[in-house]
């Protein structure tokens, strides 16, 4: 093992950073973290390197590309196209394009191992599962590495793949499975906001002088497709400053793409008022142009108040068919400032997703676009007893960060950073606290992969580690023993099996409950998690499930035993592995153990 490789498997873009492990290096030396340029097809027959690999996959059909034009340095005829070309061609033919595979990976409403993507593919197009699509991006990165670093095979290096902090145990397990499909060897997971914070530490070796004991750092990560919040507390262990991850938010499918699309829709509406209608392809072109216009208007020192956006005419008549419009600075301020980052009170929470009897299956996009409301909800998560007063809170219970670290491409825009700080400071002011200090992040697009590589070095003994543990409480559902009533399911209770903050490399036995499992038959349990209920101890029984618990994929165990049939009384044991994976075991009285597996298929059948 010569290198540590950090992979940011993003919703819209992926990146790879690496650092060399130098034997005998001073542990206080700064690891030299570098980014790898990723070769990918940018046009048919043209492979070029880029700092990011767009997380887009295109399933080529017979009439899509000229023969022999999809070759990569490591594969003359790949089955799928990943990266920039996939993204480009996908605009013209969306039915064969897979995007946001990562959001599907965390969506428990579908079978994530079944070939379901592209979601709207026409009949006859080959489909992939969210796990397989993610594996394709990971495979591309592995092959790119092997092509560029032939002396250090990828599988012999230490690899870290980042996941959103809001990923539940199932989504994490599936991410590892994707890595396995992609031919990865030694791989561990790391939460993205933590990785972003590691990147900050990597850039500021004097970080111990920049934060102090009792400080609370809010990490705001807004990427192309998702928004993620995390709180990290500066604590003390054995006389040294240490970092503890205290809370993570829910998975919010809301990001920069939504903002650019909102601008494009606004322009399209303005055009429609003047009698010009545009079609889907033109809306796509407008979407891209609005993003460029937004970036120009929000660039530091930008003086122009208006940026023209044009949609060129279709067909060979280019000038004649050109549609003209403009995006003004006021438009951007209004759409972003009022739509996505409104000034709201800290008690103003996002609208709950309404539950319809029949819901259209698809990605569960956030119902409320206001990021600031989601932030308020996150900071209002109830305190956990494990906090030990390390989270500074106002009189109303609002967690009050002292610092804020931004990550993700959306936060390049000063307007958005300033607005978030303004809103946060208003909330803190009401609670009687001084304003937050922004921690200067640098490379917002690559911080996660860089931080992952740095963390890999920390695992080797160089650098500081953030202690986190399981960011949720996990439960197993138990049906109450009650007389059956037609049409009404027996009330469900939830048994706590993994407490919030359970640390990596520990195990806990669940007391007071035994189940009789029949040998030779699969037994299935319903499985729940909560980011809000933080004080349930292992073995605690929740009578009323309410809205705080989210159901995950069921888990099942199939007992095979040499001594024939019968019923085996078992109890639960929970293990969190060193790589942060949650495992549930059934343990018989004589010490025999069976692992419970996530059953992502069953959920659909119910």
């Amino acid at each position, binding site marked *: 093992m010569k290198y540590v490789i950090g992979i940011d498997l993003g919703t819209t873009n992926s990146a790879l950073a690496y650092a060399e492990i130098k034997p005998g290096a001073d542990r206080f030396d700064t690891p030299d973290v570098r980014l790898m340029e990723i070769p990918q097809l940018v046009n048919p027959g043209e492979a070029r390197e880029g700092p990011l690999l767009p997380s887009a996959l295109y399933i080529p059909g017979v009439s899509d590309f000229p023969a022999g034009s999809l070759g990569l340095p490591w594969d003359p005829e790949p089955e799928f196209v990943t990266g920039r070309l996939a993204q480009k061609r996908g605009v013209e033919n969306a039915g064969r394009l897979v995007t946001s595979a990562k959001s599907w990976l965390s969506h428990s409403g579908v079978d994530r191992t079944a070939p379901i993507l592209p979601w709207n593919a026409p009949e006859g197009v080959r489909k992939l599962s969210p796990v397989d699509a993610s594996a394709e991006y990971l495979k591309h990165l592995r092959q790119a590495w092997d092509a560029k670093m032939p002396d250090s095979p990828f599988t012999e290096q230490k690899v870290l793949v980042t996941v959103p902090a809001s990923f539940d145990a199932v989504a994490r397990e599936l991410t590892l499975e994707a890595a396995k499909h992609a031919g990865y060897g030694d791989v561990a997971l790391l939460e993205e906001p933590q990785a972003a914070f590691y990147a900050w530490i990597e850039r500021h070796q004097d970080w111990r002088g920049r934060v102090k004991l009792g400080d609370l750092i809010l990490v705001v990560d807004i990427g192309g497709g998702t928004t993620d919040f995390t709180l990290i507390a500066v604590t003390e262990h054995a006389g040294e400053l240490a970092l503890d991850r205290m809370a993570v938010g829910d998975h919010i499918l809301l990001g920069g793409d939504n903002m650019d699309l909102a601008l494009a829709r606004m322009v399209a509406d303005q055009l429609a008022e003047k009698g010009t209608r545009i079609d889907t*392809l033109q809306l796509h072109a407008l979407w891209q142009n609005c993003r460029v216009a937004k970036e120009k208007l929000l660039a530091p020192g930008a003086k122009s108040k208006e940026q023209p956006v*044009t949609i060129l005419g279709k067909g060979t008549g*280019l000038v004649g068919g050109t549609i003209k419009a403009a995006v003004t600075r006021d438009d951007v301020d209004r759409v972003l400032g009022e739509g996505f980052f409104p000034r709201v009170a800290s008690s103003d929470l996002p609208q709950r997703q309404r539950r319809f009897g029949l819901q259209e299956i698809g990605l569960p996009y956030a119902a409320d676009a206001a990021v600031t409301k989601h932030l308020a909800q996150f900071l209002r998560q109830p305190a956990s007893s494990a906090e030990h007063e390390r989270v500074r809170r106002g009189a109303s219970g609002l967690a009050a960060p002292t610092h804020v670290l931004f990550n993700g491409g959306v936060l390049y825009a000063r307007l958005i950073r300033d607005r978030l700080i303004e809103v946060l400071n208003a909330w803190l002011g009401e609670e009687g606290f001084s304003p937050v200090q922004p921690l200067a992040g640098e490379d917002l697009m690559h911080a996660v992969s860089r931080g992952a590589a740095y963390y890999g070095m920390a695992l080797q003994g160089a650098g500081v580690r953030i202690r986190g543990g399981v960011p949720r409480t996990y439960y197993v559902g138990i049906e109450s023993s009650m007389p059956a009533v037609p049409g009404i399911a027996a009330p469900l209770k939830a048994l706590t099996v993994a407490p919030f903050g359970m640390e990596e490399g520990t195990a806990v036995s669940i007391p007071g409950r035994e189940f009789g499992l029949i040998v030779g038959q699969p037994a299935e349990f319903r499985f729940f998690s909560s980011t809000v209920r933080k004080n349930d101890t292992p073995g605690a029984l929740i009578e009323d499930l309410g809205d705080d618990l989210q159901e995950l994929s069921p888990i099942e165990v199939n007992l095979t035993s040499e001594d024939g049939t019968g019923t085996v009384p078992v109890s639960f044991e929970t293990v969190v592995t060193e790589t942060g994976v949650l495992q549930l075991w059934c343990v018989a009285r004589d010490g025999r153990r069976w692992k419970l597996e996530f059953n992502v298929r069953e959920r659909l059948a119910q």
Partner: protein
Amino acid sequence: MGRIWLATRGFFSILFRGVLPDDALAQLGLIRRATPKPQKAAAAPTPARLSDGALQILSILQRDSRLVDFIMEDIAGYSDDQVGAAVRGLHEQARESLSRYVKLEPVIDGVEGTFTKPVVSDPAAVKFIGNVPAGKPSGGLLRHKGWRAGKIDLPPLNPKQDAGIIAPAEIEIE
């Protein structure tokens, strides 16, 4: 609009053939000097390959910026406003892709309007205009810095593909 046409035409003629066409010369009031015949190097690619490269550049510029659509369109009837709106984005794209594949640099890296003594004496690289003396002039005012393709970095051509296709026809299925 005659100027845009002339400039674009001149640009491509110089880029691909190294000379301006006769009608462009006439319109500019210039006279062609005797230029050396292009040399046929033994190991050089065949002439057909050379024109493949030219077609490839055309198809790249069409793909990335729709330049061919623009040049081939009759724009006489459109207002400057309409043309301007279309050209702004096209210009940006064309410039981006041209600079990606061809590294353009000035022949003489000086300030236009200042006295300059050219180092090279190749008439294809440096052209004297105005009151040119009978002998070889030592220098003069730099009027145009000239363009030189420093490094050409075109993707390899697909041998199975018809290089004559500048842009494919598009058929949309509703």
